[in-house]
C-alpha cells in the first residue's frame, strides 16, 4: 500500500477526480455557434449562448454521440434515457443564470480505466458517471482596475464531466489516471485533451486517514490545468491535511484553489457557503432517448484503444510492455508507427527509430511529437536505406541528425554526402589490403596470437572508408585476409 509518513504514523491518501473534458465538436451543445478555441472575445456567441429573452436550447446530437462513444470507450453503461437538469446559480459569466447539466439521470454510468501504480501493479480506477453539460463564459478581471469583462465564446460549449470513484491512493496514481484518460479520449476522438487550452480541466477531491479508519473529511481542489499541477496540488494538500490533523486540528470540508506559482492551495469557499443549486429537469429540453441499435452503431465505429493496441503490439511484434505502451498510448504516435510499418515491414526497426532516436532528439530539444519535421515519408526513406544495407546504423544516425534539423529526405542527404555503404567486395578488399600493408607489424602480432588486434584493423578500415564499409562484409573479408 502506498502510505505517507507522518509524525504520528502512516497515512492513507484517498483521491477522487472530476474531469471536465471539452467534447470535440464544431458547434456548441445547444446552439449552432462555433466551438473553436481562440477567436476574438464574444465572436462565437449566438443569441442562445447570450441567453437573450425567448431563446431556446436545441440539442446538438453529435455531442450526444460523442458522450456515448466516450462512455463505451471507458467501458461504462449507456443510459437509454438521460435527462438535462438546470443547475441554478448566479454569476456574471453564466448568462442563463443556470448551467444545463445532467444531475439526476446522466448519460453514462460506471466504467473504468486500468492504470499502473508506482510499483508496476495494475490497478483499476472506477468511473462513477459521465454526464453532458454546457460550459460557462469567462470573466476577465485583469484588463481594467475597476471593470470585469465577460467573454462568452466558451459559453455553451459541450463538456463531458467524468467523475471517478475515490479509488486513487497517491498523486502518482491520479497523474497516471489522467494520462491514460487523455490518451483514451484522444484515441476516441471525443476530446483533444489539450490542458493548456482548457479542453481538459480537473478538480481533485482529497482526504487522508489512518489505514483502516473511516474516510476523512475531504477538500475539493478546483481547476487544475495540467497533470503536473494535479500531482503538485494533491501532494501539497495531503501534507496540509496531515499537518492539521497531527497538530490536533480538524479538516473543514471546503473547496480550495490551487496557486501554480506558490504550489499551495487556499480556501475558495467553505461548506457553509456552498451553493444550493436547486437542480430540476430543464423543461426546454426533452429527455435523450437512445436505442440499442443507435448505441451499437456507435460501438461498431470505436477504434482500437491504447490498451488493446499495446497488447497487440506485444503479441504481434514481440515488443516489451514498455516499448508497446510508449507507442500505443499516444494516438498520433501509434498512427505514425503504423503508417511507417505499411511502407517497411520491420516493426522492431521502426519502433527503435521512433521511440529511441526520434523521441531522444525531441526530448533533447524540448520539442513535442507534433513539432517533428520527420514525417512518415521521411522516416520511411531512412529506414529503407538501413533495411537494404545502403547505409550502416552508425551513418544512419548522422543522416538522421541532419534530417532532424532540416527535414530533408534521407536519400538526398546520403546522395549528396556520398554516404552510401560500400558493399562491393572488391572495393572493401582494396581498403583492407591497404590497411594491412600499412600495418605489417600489427599483422604479424595478430598472426602470432594477439586476437584483440582484430578490432584495430576494423577501426582502421572504417576510418579509411569514412565508416561506409558494410560491417558484416568487412568482418568476413578481414578474417579471410588475416588467416
Amino acid at each position: 500500500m502506498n502510505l505517507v509518513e507522518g509524525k504520528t504514523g502512516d497515512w492513507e491518501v484517498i483521491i477522487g477526480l472530476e474531469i471536465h473534458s471539452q467534447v470535440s465538436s464544431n458547434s456548441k451543445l445547444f446552439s449552432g455557434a462555433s466551438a473553436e478555441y481562440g477567436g476574438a472575445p464574444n465572436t462565437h456567441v449566438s443569441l442562445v449562448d447570450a441567453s437573450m429573452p425567448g431563446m431556446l436550447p436545441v440539442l446538438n446530437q453529435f455531442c450526444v454521440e460523442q458522450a456515448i462513444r466516450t462512455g463505451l470507450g471507458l467501458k461504462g453503461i449507456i443510459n437509454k434515457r438521460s435527462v438535462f437538469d438546470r443547475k441554478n446559480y448566479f454569476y456574471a459569466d453564466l448568462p442563463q443564470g443556470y448551467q444545463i447539466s445532467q444531475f439526476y439521470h446522466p448519460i453514462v454510468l460506471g466504467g473504468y480505466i486500468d492504470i499502473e501504480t508506482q510499483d508496476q501493479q495494475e490497478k483499476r480506477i472506477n468511473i462513477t458517471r459521465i454526464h453532458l453539460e454546457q460550459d460557462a463564459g469567462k470573466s476577465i478581471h485583469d484588463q481594467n482596475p475597476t471593470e470585469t469583462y465577460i467573454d462568452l465564446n466558451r459559453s455553451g460549449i459541450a463538456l463531458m464531466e467524468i467523475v471517478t470513484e475515490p479509488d486513487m491512493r497517491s498523486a502518482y496514481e491520479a497523474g497516471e489516471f489522467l494520462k491514460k484518460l487523455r490518451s483514451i479520449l484522444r484515441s476516441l476522438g471525443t476530446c483533444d485533451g489539450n490542458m493548456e487550452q482548457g479542453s481538459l480541466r480537473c478538480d481533485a477531491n482529497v482526504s487522508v486517514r489512518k489505514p483502516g479508519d473511516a474516510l476523512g473529511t475531504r477538500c475539493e481542489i478546483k481547476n487544475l490545468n495540467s497533470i503536473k499541477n494535479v500531482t503538485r496540488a494533491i501532494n501539497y494538500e495531503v501534507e496540509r491535511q496531515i499537518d492539521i490533523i497531527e497538530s490536533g486540528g480538524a479538516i473543514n470540508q471546503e473547496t480550495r484553489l490551487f496557486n501554480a506559482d506558490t504550489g499551495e492551495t487556499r480556501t475558495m469557499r467553505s461548506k457553509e457557503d456552498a451553493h444550493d443549486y436547486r437542480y430540476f429537469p430543464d423543461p426546454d429540453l426533452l429527455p435523450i432517448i437512445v436505442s440499442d441499435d443507435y448505441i451499437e452503431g456507435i460501438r461498431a465505429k470505436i477504434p482500437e484503444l491504447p490498451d488493446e493496441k499495446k497488447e497487440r503490439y506485444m503479441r504481434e511484434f514481440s515488443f516489451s510492455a514498455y516499448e508497446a505502451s510508449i507507442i500505443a498510448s499516444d494516438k498520433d504516435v501509434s498512427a505514425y508507427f503504423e503508417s511507417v510499418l505499411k511502407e517497411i515491414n520491420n516493426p522492431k526497426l521502426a519502433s527503435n527509430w521512433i521511440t529511441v532516436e526520434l523521441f531522444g532528439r525531441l526530448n533533447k530539444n524540448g520539442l513535442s511529437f507534433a513539432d517533428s519535421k520527420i514525417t512518415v515519408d521521411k522516416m520511411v526513406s531512412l529506414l529503407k536505406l538501413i533495411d537494404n544495407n545502403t547505409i550502416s546504423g552508425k551513418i544512419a544516425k548522422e543522416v538522421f541528425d541532419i534530417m532532424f534539423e532540416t527535414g530533408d529526405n534521407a536519400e538526398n542527404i546520403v546522395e549528396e554526402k556520398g554516404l552510401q555503404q560500400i558493399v562491393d567486395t572488391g572495393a572493401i578488399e582494396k581498403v583492407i589490403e591497404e590497411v594491412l600493408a600499412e600495418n605489417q607489424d600489427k599483422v604479424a602480432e595478430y598472426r602470432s596470437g594477439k586476437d584483440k588486434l582484430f578490432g584495430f584493423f576494423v577501426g582502421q578500415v572504417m576510418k579509411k572508408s569514412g565508416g561506409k564499409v558494410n560491417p558484416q562484409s568487412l568482418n568476413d573479408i578481414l578474417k579471410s585476409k588475416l588467416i
Partner: protein
Amino acid sequence: MNLNNLTIIEAIAGLKKKDFSCVELLQDHIEALEKHRDLNIFITETLDLAKSKALESDQKYSHNTNAILEGIPLAIKDAFCTNGIRTTQGSKILENFIPTYESTVTTKLFAQGAVMLGKSNMDEFAMGSATHYSSFGPTINPWKEDGSNEQFVPGGSSGGSASAVAARIAMGSTGTDTGGSVRQPASFCGIVGFKPSYGRCSRYGIIAFASSLDQAGFFGRSVGDVALLSDICMGHDEKDATSANIAKPDLAEAMKKNLKGVRVGVPKEYYSENLDPEIEKLWVDSLEMLKQEGAIVEEVSLPHTKYGISAYYVIAPAEASSNLARYDGVRYGLREYKQGMSLDEMYEVTRTAGFGSEVQRRIMIGTYVLSSGYYEDYFLKAQRVRRLMSEDFKKVFEKVDILLTPTAPTSAFSLDNESQMDPLSLYLNDLYTIPASMAGLPAISIPGRLNKKSMPLGVQIVGKRFDEESVFRVAKNMERCFNFNFSPKGF
C-alpha cells in the same frame, strides 16, 4: 365607414372584393385605438409601421399577390419578441429591450400579411389574471357592469390582447397561455380565445414564464377567425425542442362537421361552491344545447383536479424562478449599478427595481420549492400530481371526445374589488383553466351570453392532446347555437 365590427374572414372577403382597402381598414382601427387610449391596451404602438404595411398590403391585393392575412390589423402580446420593436414582457426590467430577432409565431403571421398595431399590455412576465401586474399600468376591460362607474379587469395575463379585440381596436390578437392567460381573458372580454396543445406552436421568441406550460394562443371575435390565426401559426419548429413534429390538424374540415354522435364529458369535480351561479346555469344550458344538436353528454371524473391549482403554483413558479435568472443586469435590460457595488449587490438592486411584487413573489416561491430539503416535498410532489392529472384526462378521453366546462368561476370583476384582487383569489380564478395547461391539452373559451349585469360569460371546450379538430368542431357549432353578437357599450 365603420369596419371595426367585421370578423377577419369578412374583412378578407371585403378586401378581396375591393369593398375597402387595407389602409381604410387600418384607419378605422387606429381611430378606435385613439378614442380608447384610456383602456391602456398597448405598451408600444407601432402605427407608422402599420400604415406603411397597410399600403404594401393594398399593393399586394392589387397585384393579386396577397397572402392569407393580408392587411389584417392585429395586436401582438408583448411577450412575443419582435425584431427591432421594443418587447418588454410587461416588465420594467425589459423596459428598453429591443430584440434583434422575431418570434416564430409573429414571423408566420407577418409572412401572411398581418399588420401589427402594437405590442399589447400584459401582466408582468405573464404572471397574473387581471393585467394589473403590468409595469405599464393596468389594462381596462371595455365591458362594464350595468350602472357601474368602476373599471373592470380584462382578465390576464393577455389582457391587452383580449381588450383590443373586444374593443374593436384589433381584429385578432396573439396571447400566451400558461395557466389560462388566453382563455380566462377571452371569457372576461366576451371573445373567443384558444390555447393549442402544448407543442403545437413554437415557443421560439416567446419570452418564457414557465417553459413546460407556456403556449401561444389566439383571440378573435369568431371561432373561424381564431382557427385561421391558429392554422397559420401551428406547426413544428426545429428551433424549439418541445415543439411537436406531427401533422397539423385540419381545422377548416373539422368545423364543417355537425355534433351528431360527439361524446361530451362533464367533469363532476368542476361543480364548485366558488362557481358563479349564472356561469353554472350557462354551463348546464350549454350541455342541453349540445344534446339537442345530437351530442351525447355524460358525467366523467377527474379526481386529481382538486390538487391542480396547488401543483400549478409550485411548478410554474419553480420554472419561472430559473427562467427569470437571466435578467441580471449584466447583458441587457435594466441595470441598477453604482460605483463600488459588488456583483451580488448589483443583482439585488437591479432585480428589486426591475421586477414587480407578483414576479418577486413567484420567484421566491419557486426558489423555495426547488431548494434542497423542499424539492421532494414540493416540486417532485407537484410533478407527480401533474402526471396523475394527465392520466385522469387520458382515461376520460377514452370515453369522450371533448370536455365542456366553465372557463372561469366568475365574470370580470372590478379593479377596486379587493376580495377578488388579492393574490390568492386571483390564483383561484385559474381553477378551470389550469388542468388543461398541466396536461398540455388544447382548449378554447367561447362567449355564451351576458349575465344579468350585462357582463359576458364563457364556456371552455377541452380536447385530447393534439385533437384540436374536435375542439373546433364543437366550438363552431356552439358558436352558431349561442349566436352571441353583443359588443361592449360604446364600442
